[in-house]
């Protein structure tokens, strides 16, 4: 028995080792890409198309969904580790300066050249906003979130409100053409229509910084001029902040200073606000009978009064701390998801395209006629300053906006501080 025991033991162990090794080997053939995604409709649209990608390439894609405010920290933690768990990165334009500056993202130009991926259909403004950093391509634009004004058509057409507005201002009740008109209308609606004039997202940080940027661009202001000089504290900047504070103090819903995008969306959907300055692709949701019966059929989109709103977008990137094989698989996914065919399939579900050929596609326009206005919103958008400390600047600006809006600081002082904060951070970033 002793003589037979050793070979039996060795044989058994070998068989067990073979069996256990075989299972991962079989699984290893199936490449799985992991991506951290913002929990928004755009992600759900892509998710619904993933089986097609898996069928075409054999590569599985796994999305982990999270709210926006949690994403930056989680991505940074992965990007600073030895090997990122996420193989494909969904990167907000606000981090499009920070991530390449830190050397965390791979240069995508070699992938573009090797696969002959056509960049021409991508709207140049989107490539400038979220694609290139210091003349190198680190991100492929994914979708845009340029901001415009969504408003209630039914309230503008209400006979009583029309008469009251004419009596009070001597003007016709219409879609506002300037920022002053907008704030005046917002206050009028609050006083006369039984709704908040605007659903404002005034929470400190990303919500109020993004919202204020629309006021700034509408008033003709900028953060930095063409020569890179900070010009926030200009007459236009002062006008923008004055009107922003006026509206948040007199024209909006209760609790605006702690409100986020979700809060404003719920309020608008509930029919309790006349307008909101928000991402244009919120329109189909507020116009959806099943989701928002109080506002469906009563809402419309326009470019921000004054002609310019905040431009924003997400891009796809590939982390540096990845094996070349995984980078290759990640690029296959990016080129598929941003290709013409998938872009149109996404647009048919409400995607916010970054390709001009998708906006002009007949099928898409037939289903969503307002894509024409959406394209105007995208084309006219201007950008928040993008550099290594954009995320920090959002906090610096957000703090000052919140102080001014709450009445804890004079708007002039807040603007001065916000301007100096930007200068300091740009200097720190070497710009």
């Amino acid at each position, binding site marked *: 028995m002793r003589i037979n025991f050793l070979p039996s033991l060795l044989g058994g162990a070998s068989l067990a080792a073979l069996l256990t090794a075989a299972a991962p080997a079989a699984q290893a053939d199936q490449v799985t890409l992991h991506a951290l995604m913002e929990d928004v409709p755009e992600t759900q649209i892509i998710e619904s198309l993933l089986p097609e990608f898996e069928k075409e390439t054999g590569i599985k894609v796994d999305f982990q969904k999270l709210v926006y405010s949690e994403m930056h920290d989680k991505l940074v933690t992965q990007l600073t580790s030895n090997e990122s768990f996420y193989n494909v990165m969904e990167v907000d334009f606000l981090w499009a300066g*920070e991530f390449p500056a830190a050397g965390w993202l791979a240069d995508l130009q070699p992938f573009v050249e090797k696969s002959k991926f056509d960049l021409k259909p991508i709207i140049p403004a989107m490539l400038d906003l979220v694609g290139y950093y210091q003349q190198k391509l680190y991100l492929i634009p994914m979708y845009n979130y340029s901001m415009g004004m969504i408003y209630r058509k039914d309230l503008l057409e209400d006979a009583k409100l029309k008469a009251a507005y004419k009596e009070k201002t001597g003007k016709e009740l219409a879609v506002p053409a300037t920022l002053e008109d907008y704030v005046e209308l917002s206050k009028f609606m609050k006083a006369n229509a039984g709704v908040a004039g605007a659903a404002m997202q005034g929470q400190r940080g990303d919500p109020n910084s993004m919202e204020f940027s629309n006021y700034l661009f509408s008033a003709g202001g900028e953060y930095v001029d063409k020569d890179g000089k900070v010009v926030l504290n200009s007459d236009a900047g002062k006008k923008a902040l004055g009107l922003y504070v006026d509206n948040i103090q007199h024209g909006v*819903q209760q609790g605006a200073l*702690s409100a986020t995008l979700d809060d404003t969306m719920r309020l608008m959907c509930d029919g309790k606000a006349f307008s909101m300055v928000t991402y244009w692709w919120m329109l189909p949701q507020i116009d959806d009978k099943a989701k928002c019966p109080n506002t469906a059929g009563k809402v419309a989109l326009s470019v921000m009064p004054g002609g310019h709103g905040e431009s924003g977008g997400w891009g796809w990137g590939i982390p540096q701390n990845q094996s070349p094989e995984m980078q290759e698989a990640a690029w296959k996914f990016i080129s598929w998801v941003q290709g013409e065919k998938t872009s149109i399939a996404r647009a048919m579900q409400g995607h916010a395209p970054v390709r001009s050929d998708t906006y002009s596609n007949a099928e898409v326009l037939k289903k969503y006629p307002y894509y024409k206005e959406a394209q105007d919103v995208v084309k006219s958008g201007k950008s928040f300053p993008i550099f290594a400390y954009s995320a920090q600047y959002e906090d610096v600006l957000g703090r000052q906006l919140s*102080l001014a809006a709450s009445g804890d600081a004079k708007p002039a002082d807040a603007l001065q501080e916000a301007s100096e904060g930007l200068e300091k951070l740009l200097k720190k970033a070497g710009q």
Partner: protein
Amino acid sequence: MASVTMSGNEETGLRVDRWTVTGWKFAAPGLTVLAIVMGIPLVYAVILATSSFTLLHPRVSPFVGFENFLSVMDDEYFWHSLWLTIKYSAIAVICEFLLGLGVALMLNRVVKLKAIYFAILTIPMAMSPVSVALIWHMLLQPNLGIVNELLVSAGLDGVDWLGSSNLAFWTVIFVDVWQQVSFVILILAAGLASLPKDPYEAAEVDGATDFQQFWYLTLPMLRPVATIAIIIQLINEFRTYDLVYVLTKGGPGVATDLLSFFAYKKAFLGLGINEGSATSFALLFLVLVLTIAFFRVISRRS
């Protein structure tokens, strides 16, 4: 065996040494684990706080000494956050202690269904602060939240709980106290249950009133347990981060910008892990000073 042959003093001395050595031997495994999980990160944090390490330039050299500390102290909002944190922690701990003591005294007299009361009390404590904050965020939502809905249906005006710079600070404290008070109750209730009965019997014989018994017996005897509860809660409150992150993001303005949140922003939004670490050391220093002060109070009294 050796001690048997020695004189009294020597014998005592040897025994002390033996006990000391045995004590260290027993403590060694725990101390080793502490050194690994606390000591190494702490030393690493010192290195980061005195280096030029940022997420954009992740290198610990060159050594910059106290430069990061000075840079943090140069920020006017650091001093605001520091003062706010002291105020927040003091108010929260006082509220938790007074409420906790009141409930613990009542529970001490309860005989029936005691287990059920304690089970209910542990629920907020068992929840993560993020969940607590999310629940209260929904309840206090000014336009669609239940709390304002109830106020309005009672004919009152809705309150801007988190959007008013005057109220947000107190709202965060309220949510914090709601969650943390059960811990204080449980500790004080355990302390009350362990108090000896004899002094009370003697006091009753002497005709002491309930208040006199509470003031001259319960409070002094409960002091060590109460001090421990206060120290633990002070440390907890100084570290408050989750509630601010979910409820207010430090706003409106800077009304709830506590030091932990300030440190987080330095480290992750400003990408300055070095300055974030330096800020955390300021917090650690403050907690250490207060903890030592409280321990001194206990040892003097005892």
